[in-house]
């Protein structure tokens, strides 16, 4: 029932996502703004100070990570709506175990983030990134790991909220700092010491570094460290999300408005 439950939740979310597939295009706006406006402006002022490469290819993996991060978070936010109304009540009284709901949500969010990443990927060519076969395959793998990480982060956080009004706060107070500290827009190698230390605690930093390394061969972290860190983060956050969903057994009011996973 666990696997079938996960599958059912993923199908539900992907069917809904497909209704909003225009979002895949709208979701291009933010990354392309960073890539071609910020990237062009800052890149031209920095000249050749990036240690050989030009700026746009350097930030491309970071921008890719950004689009995945926001897509995954947005997917996770649907949990809050789900709790309040609709089909999810039918899910709650079905024999699907609560952990399967959490895992399905993480899988669906990761899938959506991955799709968004694939839509951004062709712009590598415009950014002047060479897309060789080997690096591209490595990047696709790193993107998958990044998607799952961001989705697990989103679900573990969103599962605690009962209202969507906090989303802009979370977005500004958590997502953007994580993005800025990740070294997505500047090399961590030359960053101040405290920023390098902060990056060690930032899941986004590992994800972006792994994607950049895959594509350009330039790593800040040892790739094995990144792989290990991301795997550990995924495991931890998934465990956390499952635990939160599991606690929600005596909770779902049929009146739906006060519905709280946590009770």
């Amino acid at each position, binding site marked *: *029932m666990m696997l*079938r*439950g996960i*599958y*059912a939740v993923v*199908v*539900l979310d992907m*069917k*809904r996502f497909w*209704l909003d597939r225009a979002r895949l295009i709208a979701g291009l706006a933010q990354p392309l703004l960073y890539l071609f406006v910020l990237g062009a402006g800052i890149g031209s002022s920095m000249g050749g100070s990036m240690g050989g490469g030009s700026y746009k290819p350097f930030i491309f993996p970071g921008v890719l990570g950004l689009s995945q991060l926001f897509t995954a978070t947005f997917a996770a936010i649907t949990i809050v709506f789900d709790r309040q*109304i*609709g*089909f*999810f*009540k*039918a*899910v*709650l*009284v*079905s*024999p*699907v*175990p609560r952990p399967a709901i959490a895992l399905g949500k993480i899988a669906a969010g990761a899938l959506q983030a991955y799709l968004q990443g694939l839509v951004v990927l062709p712009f590598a060519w415009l950014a002047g990134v060479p897309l060789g076969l080997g690096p591209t395959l490595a990047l696709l793998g790193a993107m998958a790991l990044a998607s799952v990480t961001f989705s697990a982060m989103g679900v573990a956080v969103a599962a605690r909220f009962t209202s969507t009004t906090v989303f802009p706060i979370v977005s500004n107070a958590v997502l953007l700092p994580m993005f800025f500290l990740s070294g997505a827009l500047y090399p961590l190698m030359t960053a101040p010491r405290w920023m390098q230390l902060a990056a060690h605690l930032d899941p986004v930093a590992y994800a972006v570094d792994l994607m950049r390394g895959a594509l350009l061969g330039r790593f800040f972290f040892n790739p094995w460290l990144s792989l290990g860190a991301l795997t550990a983060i995924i495991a931890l956050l998934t465990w956390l999300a499952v635990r939160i969903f599991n606690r929600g*057994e*005596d*909770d*779902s*009011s*049929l*009146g*739906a408005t006060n519905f709280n996973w946590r009770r």
Partner: protein
Amino acid sequence: MPAAAPTSDLANVADAATTPSAVEVRGLVKRYGEVEALRGIDLTVNTGERFALLGPNGAGKTTLFSILATLRTPTAGSARVLGRDVVTERDAVRRELGIVFQEPAIEQRLSGRDNLLLMGLLYGLPTAAARRRADEILTQLGLAESAGRPAKNLSGGQRRKLELARALVTDPKILFLDEATLGLDVDARRGFWSHVRGLAATGRTVFFTTHYMEEAEVADRIALIDAGRIVALDTPRALKARLGGGVIRLKTDDDAQARTWLTGRGFATDADAAELMLVHADPAAVLPELLRHLPVKVLRAEVHEPSLDDVFLKLTGRGFGSEHASAPPGGGRGGPNGRGRP
């Protein structure tokens, strides 16, 4: 097995040895902090029965319903559905239940067919089987034509039918309906219930809550619930027979004086303040006498068969609230005094 719908009081005696009851509730208590929503509920629903749970808002209907639907856990006592405990054997119970909620539980933006397909997947059907089952149910409920449209584009009646279809995807032995027809017009309600009757005829147990008296009348038995307790549990006929005879309602220019006069002559009047209600073995015969001798001016008089609402009023001293269809025209009871008593 399609057990004959029990109609006698003997039905109260659960024949636990042979078949497990469809629903069996013992000493059920649910507290939310200080508030005691259920204060010791006992009831047995037999297999194949149509069982109605009736009561005003806040009586504990939804809490009881949620516990039986495995969405809440009781504070004390036990509840079993088809012999399975709703707490310790939750998953088994979930597999057996078909539930129609008061609020919509379909994904409005997806088509009816997609909704049912997903439902099948949630209950572990392989995709092809879920698809087949969805089409089967859609045809059975006459929804096949509109099944491709997003649910939000369907009429209110069709959407409710889709909810029923969703509950039926897994071919449940028990159907739980919580105010399933709330807000529908009379035609749509009738259409909905004709399907439910058809389901009940095939031996399924139907356990439902409703505000509409004429819907409750189709039940084999009714439990009246008030302030977290069952105040009466019987067949509709037996419940009404408790009133003994019929009901006279009077509106006069001085109800207080009329009440005193009536009480002085040994008539049992009801405490309800909005108008005078009295129960008599032969109301039609006694009414002319009353009209002739009452010392106040009678503005309106009516005689009717006792309704379930009257029974409830008699048992609890208050009406149901404003949302019942069978209230006599102009009958102002159930207004401000209908609820809100502590």
